[in-house]
């Protein structure tokens, strides 16, 4: 077999892989649109007014883990305290920050140290102090030795008082109805719905973005940020909604994850041995519940519950995305026994295999595809017009999926201005050339670090923000 023959077949294998993943994404996008339509209609007949006032709306402990978040923490905590929800508490865990996070919290929320004898459901790094706010009785701040986000959330879990907990990120600003929207389906079926996540958007300055009114909200004009926004839309509307419909929601995202507290206690809380805590926890809960043949649901909702801070430089984005790639690799590898195992129903038969094909193997195939296609054109195996048409096909096929996510989001929220929608739609076909290469590099880096068993977080610096008034 000649080298050219090998090259030809390599290209064929790569194109087949891309076609297979595309078909999977297309199927998920169609199901996602369907799920979005159902949730939209459900939400339209939901009685939020009663839910917001009822004693029967289940109380929630919101747990926020913060590490070096001095610039973002105040806006995030304020948005949480402004939630329109009958009964909740906010437990902020300062995970041994080396910046002024604690000082900012103390001065902005009038904190004083108190002793609280809490439970030790999960072992954590030692607590330094617990603070109560003199002005806001629903706020509790825990200051502890650094132990990572999972450890911080476990400390919050030990202190939380309510039946449901909601883990959130310190760089996210929440909509007033976030918890109400998130808990809507839990209230209807608390016996089965054990976990909920919901759609989040991205911005360089979440506080400023969330302050803009519905229907007139702007999308970042910088393509680099707009592409991240599109990435989030695709992840939520094209993928996670469909996973939710198929009962294999594999990632209750860290920025907004509601869990029934006894479930977390039963599985031993958040795990510290992984790069990030959210995906692994979702895998673990599925594994436990399916192994024990219990009825349960973990849902993803299309409601926009908040805006999270996105990286503003390529370096920061690569740092974030390589970490996401690593945790996916770690989780799929750790729970490999679920792969194609009928005992784990759709999670084992569809979810984990999907992750394996579309995420774990993607960096290898993507690089192979780029190199082999370039070599094939250079060596004359394919004509350059074939190469150009193939690239164009991939770009527009992906753009169609992106447009479908934009459509789903707009049907759901009607939040952005029409010119901004058009801007996003026009950017979509260029995604392959302007944004994907960065992700490709990040995913390769993540895979490499996974193979080296690197578990570091490599937190990126927060973006510069306007001084709060």
């Amino acid at each position, binding site marked *: 077999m000649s080298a050219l023959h090998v090259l030809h077949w390599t290209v064929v294998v790569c194109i087949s892989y891309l076609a297979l993943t595309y078909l999977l994404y297309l199927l998920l996008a169609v199901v996602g649109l369907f799920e979005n339509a159902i949730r939209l209609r459900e939400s339209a007949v939901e*009685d939020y007014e009663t839910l917001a006032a009822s*004693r*029967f709306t289940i109380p929630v402990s919101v747990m926020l883990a913060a590490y070096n978040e001095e610039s973002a923490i105040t806006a995030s905590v304020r948005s949480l305290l402004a939630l329109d929800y009958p009964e909740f508490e906010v437990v902020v865990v300062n995970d041994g920050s080396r910046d002024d996070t604690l000082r900012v919290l103390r001065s902005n929320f009038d904190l004083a140290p108190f*002793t609280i004898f809490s439970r030790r459901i999960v072992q954590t790094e030692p607590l330094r*102090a617990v603070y109560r706010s003199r002005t806001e009785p629903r706020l509790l701040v825990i200051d502890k030795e650094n132990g990572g986000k999972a450890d911080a959330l476990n400390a919050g879990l030990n202190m939380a008082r309510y039946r449901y907990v909601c883990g959130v990120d310190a760089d996210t600003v929440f909509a007033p109805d976030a918890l109400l929207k998130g808990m809507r389906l839990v209230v209807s079926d608390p016996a089965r719905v054990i976990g909920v996540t919901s759609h989040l958007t991205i911005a360089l300055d979440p506080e400023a973005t969330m302050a803009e009114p519905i229907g007139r909200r702007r999308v970042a004009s910088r393509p680099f940020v707009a592409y991240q926004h599109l990435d989030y839309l695709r992840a939520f509307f094209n993928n996670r909604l469909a996973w939710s419909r198929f009962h294999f929601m594999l990632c209750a995202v860290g920025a907004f994850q509601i869990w029934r507290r006894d479930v977390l206690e039963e599985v031993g809380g958040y795990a510290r041995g992984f790069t990030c805590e959210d995906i692994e926890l979702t895998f673990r809960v599925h594994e436990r519940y399916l192994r024990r043949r219990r009825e349960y649901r973990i849902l993803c909702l299309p409601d926009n519950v908040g805006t999270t801070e996105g990286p503003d430089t390529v370096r920061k984005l690569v740092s974030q995305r390589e970490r996401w790639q690593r945790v996916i690799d770690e989780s799929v590898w750790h729970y490999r026994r679920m792969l194609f195992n009928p005992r784990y129903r759709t999670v084992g038969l569809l979810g984990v295999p999907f992750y394996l094909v579309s995420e774990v193997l993607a960096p290898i195939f993507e690089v192979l595809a780029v190199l082999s296609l370039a070599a094939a054109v250079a060596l004359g195996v394919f004509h350059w017009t074939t190469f150009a048409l193939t690239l164009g*096909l991939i*770009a527009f096929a992906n753009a169609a999926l992106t447009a479908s996510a934009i459509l789903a989001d707009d049907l759901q929220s009607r939040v952005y201005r029409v010119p901004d929608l058009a801007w996003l739609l026009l950017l979509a076909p260029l995604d392959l050339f302007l944004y994907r290469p960065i992700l490709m590099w990040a995913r390769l880096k993540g895979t490499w670090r996974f193979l080296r068993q690197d578990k570091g977080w490599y937190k990126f610096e927060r973006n510069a923000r306007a001084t709060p008034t």
Partner: protein
Amino acid sequence: MEGSVSPLTAAFAAAVLAWASVATLTVVGRLGFERRRRFSASQPVALRSAPARSRRLVARAERHRGEAGKWKRIAALRTVSRERHPRRRALLRWALEDRDRDVAGAAIRILGEIDDDWATEMLLEALRANRYPRALAAGQLERRSPAIGPRLVQLLSDTDAAVRFWGATLLAGCPEIARGELIALTTDPEANVRAAATEALGARSGRGVRDAVRARLGDDAWFVRVHACRALGQVGSPDDAPALAGMLGDPWWWVRAAAKDALRSFGLNVAGVLVPQLDSDDGFVRNGAAEVLQDIGFLDGLARSGKEGVLRERILVAGGDDMRRTAETRADAEESARIDRRTGS
């Protein structure tokens, strides 16, 4: 063949067309939405429909086929209800009895918007029926209490424990009635019912209430004890503090937390009861007593007055090193603030 289009070119064209179609749909759909919004804001809604439209609406609200039909039915149900269609009662009853949870749930929510007696009766029936989450019907009934209080009392004698539970829970919002019935329910064979009755008594006063609640502090079920502690915090007085202080040693964290909350609610009046608990053999009791004394301001008060150094020390020993540290930090902060005020800095 000359002039034919290669499959790749065709696929490329199809991809471009797909993107362009979805993009156009998105923008045009949004513009249409904006136009409809502006139009509906400027036009009054017709309360009475034309006969043909009315017939169509009723047909839609009667039954559905498929997922899309279901949501059309729900929308139609809402419309006939808001337009006070003469058949809305029958249509809502059918919807309530529908096997689809979305339809039944929507009927409950729509009934919640109707103030008539028959709607209340149907919600009570929905609460009795175990076809959908009872909390949904209870949420709507809660909005009508205390006006519907006497009807809720009937639920207390139901043979189904879940109905008695919801009856007692809803009666928490009607503090003027059913005191005797709720006291009787605190000895119900079902622990959930006892818990709900105890909780409801927390909003009442009068003869027998305090005794009935206090009796539940010794209940076998931990969650009944939780409700008893909370209720005693509401209906009791500092005289009940010894009984609540005894709950600080309960094996269940939830009960200890509820006892602490109740004791806090009595303020500084409980200090005299809690001080002896600082020397208890039970670590939970010592910790709990110290924590409450800290929270009600007794500990900081001792520091401020400069007296009772021994008593302060006893609290700090019972509370442990952490309590000593936090108390000193608060005292330092207070002292700094005082100096700042004096010096005007």
